[in-house]
C-alpha cells in the first residue's frame, strides 16, 4: 500500500508530484494551475470571506467524509451570509504513513462537492508531519463568496419573524458517534453533510425576505437558536413537536442521554424569514431533496429577550439552553 511519506511535504520532487498528480488532477482550474504564490481573483461588489478547519474521526462515515465536510462546511458558511461561493483554499495536514488511496478518495469527494456550488479551489498547501503529530488528516479550507443578498445577519432578527428548519436534525452528530462506537443502529442513519448553496440561491431567487440564515453545525440547533436570541435580543418560541428528528437519531439520543437539539449537523440550516413569506420559503426549500422536510418550527417574540423557549405539545414550556461542554453520555 502506498503511503504518504515525510518527503511528500518536503517541498521537493515528491511534493511537486503529489500536487500535480493528485491535487491539480482533481481540483484543476485556470487559476490553480498557474501555480503562483497567490491566486489572482476577479470579484464584483461585496465579498464574504470565511475559514474553517476540519477534524473528524472516523475520516469516512455514512453520508460523507472529511473532504466532503471541508468543502460543504466552508461553502455553507458563505451561503449562510447570502454569498455565492466562488473560491476556496485548501490546506492539508497529513500524518506520515497516511494511505494514498484514502487521500485520493477524500480529494475526489472534495471535487464532487465543489461541483454542487460551482466554487473552485484556487490555492492550497500541504504539510506532512511525523506520526502522532496529527490524527491522520486535518484539512483547513477558506472561502470567498460574492454577496448576492445583503443584510442577512444574526443581529437583525425581528419580532414576528418565523423560524424555519431546513430538515430533520442531529444526523451528522449521531452518525459520527455511531461510527466511532462501532454500533450499527440502522442502515438508514447517515450524515446530512451537504452543500446548501442551491437551496439558499433559490430562496434569494424567489425574493424571500430573509432576516438570518445559519447552518446548525457544532452545538446543533440549540446553539444556533440561542446565538440568534442573544445577538438580536429577541425571544425564539419553538414548538417542540415541529422539530423533525428521525427515529434513528432519537434512538441514539435515548441510548446515550443526548438531546437531538445539541447534536451537530452538516447540511441542516435554520432561517428567520418575514411571516408573510414563511409558507413560500418552505415550499421553495422543499423543492430540494435535502430540504424536503423543511418546516416552520417557531416564531420570534419579545417575551424573554435573549432566550429560547420550547413549547411542549401538552402545554408546558421550558428554556432550550446552549449545549454545555463536551457531549458525554449520561451515567444512567
Amino acid at each position, binding site marked *: 500500500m502506498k503511503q504518504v511519506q515525510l518527503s511528500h511535504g518536503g517541498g521537493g520532487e515528491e511534493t511537486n508530484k503529489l500536487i500535480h498528480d493528485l491535487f491539480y488532477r482533481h481540483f484543476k482550474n485556470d487559476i490553480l494551475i498557474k501555480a503562483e504564490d497567490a491566486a489572482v481573483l476577479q470579484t464584483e461588489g461585496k465579498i464574504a470571506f470565511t475559514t474553517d478547519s476540519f477534524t473528524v474521526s472516523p475520516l469516512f462515515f455514512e453520508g460523507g467524509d472529511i473532504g466532503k465536510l471541508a468543502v460543504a462546511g466552508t461553502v455553507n458558511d458563505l451561503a449562510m451570509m447570502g454569498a455565492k461561493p466562488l473560491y476556496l483554499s485548501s490546506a492539508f495536514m497529513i500524518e506520515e504513513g497516511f494511505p494514498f488511496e484514502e487521500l485520493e478518495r477524500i480529494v475526489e469527494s472534495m471535487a464532487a462537492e465543489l461541483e454542487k456550488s460551482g466554487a473552485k479551489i484556487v490555492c492550497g498547501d500541504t504539510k506532512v508531519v511525523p506520526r502522532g503529530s496529527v490524527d491522520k488528516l486535518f484539512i483547513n479550507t477558506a472561502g470567498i463568496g460574492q454577496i448576492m443578498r445583503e443584510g442577512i445577519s444574526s443581529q437583525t432578527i425581528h419580532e414576528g419573524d418565523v423560524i424555519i428548519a431546513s430538515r430533520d436534525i442531529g444526523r451528522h452528530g449521531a452518525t459520527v458517534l455511531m461510527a466511532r462506537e462501532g454500533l450499527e443502529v440502522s442502515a438508514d442513519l447517515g450524515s446530512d453533510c451537504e452543500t446548501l448553496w442551491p437551496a439558499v440561491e433559490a430562496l434569494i431567487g424567489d425574493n424571500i425576505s430573509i432576516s438570518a440564515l445559519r447552518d446548525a453545525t457544532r452545538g446543533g440547533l440549540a446553539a444556533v437558536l440561542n446565538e440568534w436570541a442573544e445577538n438580536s435580543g429577541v425571544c425564539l418560541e419553538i414548538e417542540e413537536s415541529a422539530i423533525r428528528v428521525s427515529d434513528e437519531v432519537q434512538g441514539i439520543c435515548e441510548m446515550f442521554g443526548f438531546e437531538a437539539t445539541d447534536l451537530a449537523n452538516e447540511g441542516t440550516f435554520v432561517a428567520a424569514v418575514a411571516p408573510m413569506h414563511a409558507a413560500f420559503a418552505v415550499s421553495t426549500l422543499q423543492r430540494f431533496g435535502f430540504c424536503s422536510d423543511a418546516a416552520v418550527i417557531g416564531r420570534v417574540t419579545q417575551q424573554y429577550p435573549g432566550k429560547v423557549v420550547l413549547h411542549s405539545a401538552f402545554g408546558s414550556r421550558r*428554556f432550550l439552553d446552549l449545549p*454545555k461542554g463536551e457531549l458525554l453520555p449520561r451515567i444512567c
Partner: protein
Amino acid sequence: MSELKLKDLYDGFRDPATIRMLAAQIGEAAKALHEPLRIMEVCGGHTHTIMKYGLPQVLPDNIDFIHGPGCPVCIMPKERIDHAIALARMDDTILVTLGDMIRVPGSQSSLAVERAAGRDIRPLYTPMDALKIAKEHPDKKVIFFAIGFETTTPMTAALLHAAIAQKVTNLYFHINHVLVPPAIDAIMSDGQAKINAFIGPSHVSVITGAKIYAPLPQKYSTPVVVCGFEPVDVMQGILMAVRQQAEGRAELEIEYSRSVTMEGNVKAQQLIDMYLQPRSHFRWRGIGDIPDSALELKPEFAHLDAEKVFAEVLPTEPIDDHKLCICGTILKGLAKPMECKVFGTACTPNSPLGSCMVSSEGACNAYYRYAGVLG
C-alpha cells in the same frame, strides 16, 4: 447487531394527549388531598424528566417535588474524586470512568483538567470498553473508577467477571457503587425533610426488584411508586401516589410493570454478590456518613482493588463542600436549587461550585437548563 428499534420503547410514553389526560385525572384526584403531596423523586433521572418536560406546570399547586439524593455524581464526596485524580496522575496509568464524572471538581482539580494536562483519562460509553483498553495496553495500569447506583453495578460485576475469566491482570477497580435504600432511610430518619410520598427509579428496581422499598411505606407512612422515566410514566406514578394518599393508603406499587418485578433480576444480583459486598461506611457528599450504603470488592479480589493496591497515593482526609454551596441541603430534600445564593451566578454548569450543578442528573443542573425564570 441487526436493526434496533427504540422508537416503540418511548413513543407512546410521550404522547401529549395521554399526558393531558393524566394531568386532568391528577387534578381531580388531588382535590381530595388533606395536605399537599410532597413527593421525593429519589433519582436524578426523574428530576431531569420532571424539569425537561415541565411537568409541574401542568400539575395542581398542592403537588410539590422534592429532589432526592439519587445522582451518582452529585453524591460523590470530593475526597473520592481526589482519589481518581491521584490514580490518574500515577505513571503508566489509564483512568477510565463514566460520563459526567470527568467534569466534577475535586478539592483542587478535576479529571477534565488533568486530562488537558496530559493524563490519560478516558470516558467510557460502556464499562466493557475498559477490558478492551486494558488488553490494548498490557504495559499500562488501567483503572476503572466505577460509579453509580444499583443500576450500573451489574455492569461492573460483569466487567470483573470477564477480566478474571480472560486473565486480564492490568485492570483495577475503584468501587464507588452506592445504594438507594440506606440513603432514603438516612434522609427520613433525620426527621427534617417533609416528604409524604416517593417515586422510585424503575431502572434500579429492574435489577434489585421493587422489594428494596418494601419497608418504607409502613415505616414512614409514605406511598412508594416505582416508576419509569418517560413523562407518561412519571405522570401515571404521581396519579398512583395521589390516589394512595387521598384514600389514606401507604403502599408499595409498581407503575413500571413492563420491566419491574418484586424480585428483580436475580442473575444480576448473584453476579454482584459474587464480587462485591456492603461497605461498612460511605461518606455521601453533603449528607455525611451512611453505614452500609455502598459496596466494595470482596477481600479475595483485593489484588484488583485500586483502593488497596495503590493505597499509598490516595488521600484519606474528608473534604467538605464550598461553604456557599447548599448541595447537601438540596440532596436531603430541605431546599430547592433556586434557594441557593450562588445558583446561576457563582455556580453554573460551566463553573460549578457544587456537584448538583455538574451532573446532568443533578437538581441544580436540571433547574438551570430547563427552568430558569420560568420556574
